[in-house]
């Protein structure tokens, strides 16, 4: 019991709510901000959990390479840094390679995010994958309704829930926190 409690405290010290220098650099000087008017692919995602929104614009050349990428983001420092890093990771990559970029890759390239902000990185990869899908649909002559193109991000892979009271990791369906015994009837 005591051991478990101490462990929790140590984790909290390590994972401070502050952003690291890489994240702050991408937040203060975001790369690839803007719109591509004649984009080959556009992906939009919104995250109802914290209200962030992101749009990714792609330009793809004849070698199936992402020759240009731009983003627009409504969100916190983390969401902006994630967008910026994502565009850096995707730029110059072949479509097939870019499709492999995961949320984890973005968070790792940023050398970590405060754990309650990890879900912001989901936004980034999702928007990129939507943009790639849009590009491929266009190429194949498939048209989709706008609702179908806009992914409503829900709890996804790689996203973990934390108790809003004591910050301990909990299961998505938990109704109370085992660590602090609080009731968790609301969404977490």
């Amino acid at each position, binding site marked *: 019991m005591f051991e478990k409690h101490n462990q929790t405290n140590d984790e909290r010290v390590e994972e401070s709510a502050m952003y690291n220098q890489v994240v702050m650099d991408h*937040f*203060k000087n975001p790369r690839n901000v803007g719109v591509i008017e004649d984009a080959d692919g556009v992906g939009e995602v919104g995250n109802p959990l914290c*209200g962030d929104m992101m749009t990714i614009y792609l330009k793809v050349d004849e070698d199936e390479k992402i020759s240009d990428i731009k983003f627009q983001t*409504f*969100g916190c420092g983390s969401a902006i840094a994630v967008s910026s890093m994502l565009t850096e990771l995707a730029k110059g990559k072949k479509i097939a390679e870019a499709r492999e970029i995961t949320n984890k890759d973005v968070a790792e390239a940023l050398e970590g995010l405060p754990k*309650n902000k990890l879900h912001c990185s989901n936004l980034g990869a999702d928007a990129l994958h939507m943009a790639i899908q849009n590009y491929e649909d266009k190429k194949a002559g498939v048209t989709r309704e706008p609702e179908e193109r806009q992914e409503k991000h829900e709890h996804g892979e790689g996203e973990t829930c934390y108790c*809003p009271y004591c910050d301990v990791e909990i299961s998505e369906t938990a109704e109370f926190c085992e660590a602090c015994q609080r009731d968790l009837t609301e969404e977490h």
Partner: protein
Amino acid sequence: MGFINLDRISFNPLLPEVKQVMIDAINSDLHNPSSQHKAGEQAAEKLADARQQVANLVNAGNAKEIVFTSGGTESVNHAIKGTAMANREKGSHIVTTNIEHNAVLRSIKRLSNQGFKVTSLPVDAAGRVDPAAVEDAITDETILVSVMHSNNETGTIQPIAEIGEVTRRKKVLFHCDAVDSVGVVPVDVEKLNVDLLSFASNPFSGPTGVGGLYIRRGTRIFPLLDGGVQENNKRGGTENLVGIIGMGKAAELAVQHMEERIGQMQALKDYLAEQLPEYIDEYIVNTDPAHSLPNLLNISLKYIEGESVMLMLDEENLAVATKSACATGSLRASHVLLSLGLSHADAQGTLVVSWGSDHTRADIDKFLASLAGVVNTLRSMSPLYQKA
């Protein structure tokens, strides 16, 4: 460039006079006020003086009605849990509002998990509770009504005296969380008809970690901290005398200078509200202009998110607070802003700007100029702004 603290709702630096009495108190090695020898008596006198200074601030008829606590949160927990437990045989229904501070919300949530019934009242678009709704919510089972004096996010002041009239007539205990009001604006427990009033020392530039709870004589309440007979048997534990002495001095100064400070702070508020449209467009003011604190303005900036604004202003040595969901540990939009009817997107762009009587127009000018730049930068990268 100097640091400008426009986040006074989170922290106020100690006044020099307050620092001095606290340093003197430390240097004089004051004994335990409960000890019956001369050294203890000396400490007890200091404690009594501070209690009187604080009683004067809220116009308590008897200084013994003031209990010193570790701050606003303890006061609120004591008032709510202490009266609920002590009056349980009378009933188990509590009336509160949707915009209370977490100290109140979570204390009441805790009680509701223990079987208490709760009615939480909505606020109007201005953020105020209707006293008639309080009256309608009270049943034969109701033992406590808890309504905050001013809201910690919006600064909007509730019609406490009118609600107190209702609770007095209905013979129900009335607790008021006045943490952000006491020492800032006049708060008089007689005029407000309250039975319990929670407050803290830092909002009027006393030390953090010290607060007070006014408990009207004759109120049935259990201690939150069982222990010795300190604080007239209402709170066990040796008093934080150095902090209490600091709070007493800050209370005395607040009584002396309140009118003058309000004038200075209100002038800055008027100036900020008047200058804002010169610097930015498309924002919502969430502070009720007619009934609100003089030292705070809550604004929602459309199409952008508050944590980003706060971090960018921080780069320019300007501290403000934000109520964006992203900036809270729980990642939920502020329950206060949603209660006002704000959309989630608009609530995301919310800043709480707060100041003291020592701030100047030049500070506000600097803030506005920096804010305009930050708003432009963030809107230029916002997908919502492009679409609007």
